[in-house]
């Protein structure tokens, strides 16, 4: 594969917000002292009246966003992953997801975080959120996205703004490789077949989509045809694409920067076990916390948890032998 083009999710998010701000006067953006880091401060410069920095007070961030939303605003609240689901789950549940105005489900708040998963790097285990998907997936009325690249960030941000209700979207800290084309469509509850194949499926999300593609490429050389799915919509999940993959390829490896419990792997297993059970291998944090790693050492940290294209390829080979 060619060397990837690396782009920055937070810059893309910032650009998308400013565009949304121009298109829709009801869009408001909130932050908690990480607004330069998240680059939401750009929106604040354009629309100072619609931008609120509540300080290092994430509970407050969530609930103020909810109050604005119940009054007709479309709230985007952003900080690091570790400080939103990881810290303010009560407010997320009781102030955003639970309150349902007549005929609606939850309030119109979009929680968009960066610094998801292990690739946060140097800040260490305290900042590497590997539990957020499990937390957010279990809360009724929430929909959960993990974009693989900046094209996904841009399109999903717009999609969330146009669709009523609570959303959670997790971005990565570091620059991410482009995997999609500008014309790629994104829909709630859909996955994308980024590479077709017949012998095995790799269901990936976030930065692991590129790894999955690399693994598929190397497996091709061994004569193994791998299908790669970008499961950016973790909830609702695309049951159809998964059932089809199970029927047509007979086994599924999942990859994610998240604990193997409760994340994409669990979601895929739940889905497939109800539609067309096939052997599944979950790659992700092996129920242990992350640790510090300088930017150039992040691959080592990921490797420790088996989140590499080499391990994905290895797991595909092993799993194929377990096919029913």
């Amino acid at each position, binding site marked *: 594969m060619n060397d990837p083009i690396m782009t920055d999710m937070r810059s893309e998010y910032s650009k998308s917000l400013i565009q949304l701000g121009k298109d829709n006067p009801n869009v*408001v953006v909130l932050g908690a002292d990480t607004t330069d880091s998240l680059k939401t401060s750009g929106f604040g410069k354009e629309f100072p009246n619609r931008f609120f920095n509540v300080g290092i*007070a994430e*509970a407050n961030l969530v609930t*103020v966003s909810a109050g604005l939303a119940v009054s007709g*605003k479309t709230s985007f609240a952003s900080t690091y992953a570790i400080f939103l689901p990881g810290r303010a789950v*009560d407010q997320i549940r009781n*102030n955003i997801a639970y309150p349902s105005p*007549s005929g609606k489900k939850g309030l119109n708040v979009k929680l968009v975080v960066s610094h998801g998963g292990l690739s946060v790097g140097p800040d260490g285990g305290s900042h590497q959120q590997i539990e957020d998907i499990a937390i957010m997936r279990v809360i009724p009325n929430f929909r959960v996205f993990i974009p693989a690249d900046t094209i996904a960030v841009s399109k999903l941000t717009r999609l969330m703004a146009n669709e009523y209700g609570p959303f959670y979207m997790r971005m990565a800290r570091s620059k991410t490789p482009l995997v999609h084309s500008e014309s790629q469509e994104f829909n709630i509850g859909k996955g994308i077949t980024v590479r077709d194949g017949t012998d095995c499926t790799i269901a990936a999300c976030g930065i692991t989509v590129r790894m999955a593609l690399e693994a598929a490429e190397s497996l091709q050389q061994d004569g193994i045809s791998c299908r790669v799915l970008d499961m950016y919509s973790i909830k609702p999940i695309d049951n159809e694409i998964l059932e089809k993959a199970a029927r047509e390829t007979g086994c599924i490896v999942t990859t994610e920067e998240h604990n193997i419990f409760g994340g994409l792997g669990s979601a895929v297993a739940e889905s497939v076990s109800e539609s067309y059970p096939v052997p599944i291998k979950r790659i992700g944090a092996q129920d242990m916390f992350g640790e510090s790693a300088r930017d150039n050492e992040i691959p080592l940290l990921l490797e420790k948890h088996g989140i590499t294209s080499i391990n994905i390829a290895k797991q595909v080979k092993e799993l194929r032998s377990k096919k029913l």
Partner: protein
Amino acid sequence: MGLNYYQIKKNILKARKLVIKGTNTAGSGHPGGSFSMAEILGCLFYKHLKFDPNNPQWEDRDRLVLSKGHAAPGLFSNMAVAGYFPESELETLRKFGSKLQGHPDLKCPGVEFCGGSLGTGLSYSIGIALAGKLDSKNYHVYTIIGDGESDEGQVWEAAMTASKYKVDNLTVFLDRNFIQQDSYTERVMPLDEKLEGDNLSEMWKDASRWKTGDKWRSFGWNVIEVDGHRVEQVDAAIKKANATKGIPTIIISRTIKGKSVEHMEDNPQWHGKAPDSDVVPIINQELDSQFMIAPSIIAGDMTNLENEVKRCVHGRADYIHLDVMDGQFVPNKTFDHTKIKELRSLTVIPFDTHLMINEPVKHIRDYIDAGSDVVTVHAEVTDESSFGEIHDLLKQNQVGVGFAINPDTDFPEWANKFIPSLDQIIVMSVVPGKSGQKYIEATHEKMARLKSLLSEHNFSGYIEADGGVNLENIGSVFADGARAFVGGGAIIGQQDVRVAIKDFRIEVLKSRRKQLLEKANQLGGSELVNKWINLHVIGEKQEQIRKIAQEAGFV
């Protein structure tokens, strides 16, 4: 809406009864915290809050956020009284399929916030208030937080945020009842100073111990401190808060958990417990037996009425009774509306203006403008037409309507049609004209006759006893059905007005306790009497009530 204080109090009473009904039917719920904020909600719902029960989502409505969500029965009962849904709906409280959930929920149209998890309502309110400003809306956000709830750190995150963004379209009430689930707030997590012993009244007495206001002031808030059970104080505070721009306001309302039901008052057990069915009728009677003390300042120094008003304030009078005499209807002359206007600025305590003048219809406007909260006119100088005019004018101006009869006057038949909307009836127990006369004993009989007439015509106001009421007879006057008591020489004539008023209250309380024991005895004999007595666990109440029961032969 805008009701007068009497009507507000009537609605508060209705709401309190619905709380009892709802929690009793549900078998659980939180009456204590519903009662501590009852007057706050009353002032909001029936005077200040802009809302339309037929259009709960009206976009210009004021927003009421009950952050201390466990007091949901208090919110729901007021919503029922305000017309959002039938009062009978309270019977579905906490039941499967009901829109009246255990905690406030958007499932019930008109509820603005899903409460329950404490500490979040203020942040939510800030969001609503900020949206209002963005949309150039004039709505106001009122938020009620609890003192136990103030343990939550998010309250203080929100406090900073409101201050930073100058959220002045938001007014917060702190329901400072000193009790949370486990125990007294000052034991669990002090907001003021540490409580020594169990006597909450110690906390009340000594303002130097109140630190909560300082906390909020240091967070950049405008702080107003009131007695949260005094409708007039809450009302005045709301007006002040709404007039304060550029800074958020908190009204720290010193309240009593379980207020109005003696055995629930200041009792942590009633944070989250429902009353049993057998005591509900007794509780309802107790709620119907709230009373007020109204010193009459003409019994004092007529050359310095300002000072007499100040003594009433110091004495914590419920009302100040102002006897206006014109030298024609009665031989004496006291003062007129110009004096009342002068006195008005001294206090927010309601002015109970009693017009003993000829042709009151000609002067009624002046007494409204002077700042009266209730104006009572005499049967002897009104007829159906002139009283009708007076009645309408008073109601339109949110002033209570009073009607008085002299000792030798019977309640005139033409006035029957006004009975349902009268706020007060004064049964004179002396010949009006001067203070210092003896109570006319025949009044007791007259009261008994009157009571049946009034109940026949759905009277829901207060009967005020005026003339010769003293410590010796006040208990029996209460037993006759009077609920407001004018005290002339027996209060204003005393050295220490505060002690005199307190003694009045103690005597009424004794009489009330006896009546409630009678009710218990009548409903369930000595078993229920004992149960009732044993509910009173705070302070020396139980001992005192048992003594009354023993003297009456109920136990």
